[in-house]
């Protein structure tokens, strides 16, 4: 037995594993080899036809109008890609496994019995077992739709060219190009993009600033009934957002809203066009978002402020630091350090804050020479393009742009804050 192991060839084992299971059989792990080859054959029998059609569909998007539904073919194609990806991973894992086992046998490792082999497989496979249900759902609900969206951006799927009556075809980057060259798309795209950025920055920053200010005020030792004050200040967060937004939409209504009727008209003599003028709509939206969003940040900051040790301030007092110095050198760094990732999440949340824009006045008012409303942000424009004008291809193209902006900034920021934090830990 021991003499043989010297000749055991790990390269040969890996090579044999081109047919899954053979390499394992060569390693005298017959049960394992049998299971591998059984899975391999089962996969070939059940999936090869599906994958074949899927890949064909992905390339052609169908050939007979009315019979081939390009959307179904596209989704089959994506599922095929996902299946192939998994199959490839397993295939490579199988080859690596044969190679590694052979290597170990060469070094005089004794092949374990069936029982022990199963125990090892269970131990090694356990994390995958844990992850798989979540992963499956994630692929079905998040990854698959995102891929579908990605492919859709390169087709000509719109109201006039819609399956099952028509076939879709690949158009390359045409949708993206028309987004920046065709005047109506270009004007709309840039004005919506600029407003989205302004909205994200102004609304979120005001939210954070107000929350910080209030958290500092309430944390002041001279203030009484802290618990009560905090509870009231958190109230806007506790009430479901869509309820408050709809209430605000009624309050800001030009004609019968209470803000115009009961507050502004007695004070100024006339109301403001909150719903019909883009500028005032934007102001109203920012004010509402600050109202809705500050309590969460306030609660965060309050938690952090309470956890800052009093020693810091005592030491600062001894050194004769002013109030502003204490703030910039102790309070502010502490708070930002502990909450930076969550604050970034606030920005990316507002960037895609569809609810408030849509529920307030559906992105309106309409603007001349644009196919988006005056307060539409990118995501609500996508919604409009999808469900109102059925410009699926353009909606998908814009979604991809949104995706790049969100993922790019957030990923960069997360990495930065994390490395920053690791330095802080030393």
């Amino acid at each position: 037995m021991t003499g043989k192991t010297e000749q055991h060839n790990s390269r040969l084992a890996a090579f044999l594993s081109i047919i899954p299971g053979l390499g394992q059989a060569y390693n005298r792990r017959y049960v394992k080899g049998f299971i591998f080859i059984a899975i391999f054959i089962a996969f070939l029998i059940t999936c090869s036809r599906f994958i074949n059609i899927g890949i064909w569909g992905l390339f052609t998007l169908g050939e007979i109008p009315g019979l081939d539904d390009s959307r179904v073919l596209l989704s089959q194609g994506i599922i095929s890609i996902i299946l192939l990806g998994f199959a490839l991973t397993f295939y490579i894992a199988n080859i690596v496994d044969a190679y590694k086992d052979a290597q170990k046998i060469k070094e005089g490792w004794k092949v374990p019995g069936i029982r022990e082999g199963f125990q090892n497989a269970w131990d090694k496979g356990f994390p995958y077992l844990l992850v798989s249900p979540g992963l499956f759902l994630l692929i079905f609900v998040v990854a698959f739709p995102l891929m579908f969206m990605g492919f859709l951006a390169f087709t000509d799927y719109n109201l006039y060219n819609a399956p099952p009556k028509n076939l879709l075809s690949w158009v390359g980057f045409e949708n993206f190009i028309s987004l920046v060259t065709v005047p109506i798309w270009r004007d709309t795209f840039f004005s919506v993009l600029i407003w989205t950025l302004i909205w994200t920055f102004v609304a979120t920053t005001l939210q954070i600033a107000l929350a910080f200010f209030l958290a500092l005020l309430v944390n002041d030792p001279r203030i009484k009934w802290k618990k009560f004050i905090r509870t009231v200040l958190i109230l806007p967060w506790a009430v479901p957002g869509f309820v408050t937004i709809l209430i605000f939409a009624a309050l800001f209504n030009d004609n019968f809203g209470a803000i115009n009727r009961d507050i502004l008209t007695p004070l100024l003599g006339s109301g403001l066009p909150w719903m019909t003028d883009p500028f005032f709509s934007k102001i109203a939206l920012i004010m509402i978002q600050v109202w809705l969003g500050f309590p969460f940040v306030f609660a965060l900051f309050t938690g952090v402020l309470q956890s800052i040790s009093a020693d810091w301030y005592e030491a600062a007092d001894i050194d004769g630091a002013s109030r502003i110095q204490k703030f910039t050198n102790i309070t502010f760094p502490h708070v930002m350090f502990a909450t930076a990732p969550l604050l970034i999440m606030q920005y990316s949340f507002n960037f895609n804050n569809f609810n408030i824009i849509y529920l307030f006045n559906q992105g309106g008012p309409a603007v001349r020479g644009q196919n988006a409303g005056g307060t539409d942000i990118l995501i609500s424009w996508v919604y409009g393009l999808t469900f109102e004008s059925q410009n699926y291809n353009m909606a998908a193209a814009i979604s991809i742009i949104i995706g790049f902006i969100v993922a790019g900034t957030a990923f960069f920021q997360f990495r930065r804050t994390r490395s920053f934090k690791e330095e802080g830990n030393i």
Partner: protein
Amino acid sequence: MSRKMKNTLEVTGIYLFIGIMFVVIAYPLIWTLGLSLNPSSSLYSASIIPENWSFTHYKWLFFDPRSDYLLWYKNTLIVATATSFFSVLFVSLTAYAFSRYRFAGRKNGLYAFLVLQMFPVLMAMVALYILLNTVGLLDSLVGLIIVYVGGAIPMNAFLVKGYFDTIPRELDESARIDGAGHFRILFTIMLPLAKPILAVVALFNFMAPFMDFILPRIILRSSENYTLALGLFNFVNDQFANNFTRFAAGAILIALPIATIFLLLQRYLVSGLTAGATKG
């Protein structure tokens, strides 16, 4: 003397500012409450304190044969319970694997989760719509639950993984030496210790269906499948001025229980969030 003056002035200023904030916060809420108790159904005649109180709108919601309010409440409860349960289940399994095992693909998996949690499910709405249509889950609560659970996994898995990381490894290692299996360690050691964060995840996902409006709007088509948010939105959307008082009554009935639970538990919410995020 002047120092004392300054002190009092400051404190008064702080109270004044907090007082203004109170008014700004309370005004829309009280206005809605007043509206819901107003006997007439139009916004024009509505005043913040109704002259004659009445519960007409609440009665209508519950007892009028044309009202689907109770059905919507039931739908929302079903969706919320299922979403909350399955999210906690899948999220704790996933987070446990990422926190305690070192397996091939772990690092890439973590990055994939980090990136995926940034994409709102909403971004792929066309695809979701077509996908659910092809598998026949459009206009069904099951479809809605699946989308909620799937969308909740990446973000919450991160939170829970962060929390698991703070539980000392010695605990489960010593249990392993004593011969405890994988599932035994998970269910008897890890999950009980992680109760606070699991409660946060459960609560978040329970409340989401009460507050979310856009996914039901895309997925649900028929009135008997509506969740509360969608049903109430249609009150307002159909004939704005006519049904607003009814909307107000329905909204109060959602907001009260949710706000109460929320205020009772918000301390745990915040501590759970900060713990999960900073350890991420």
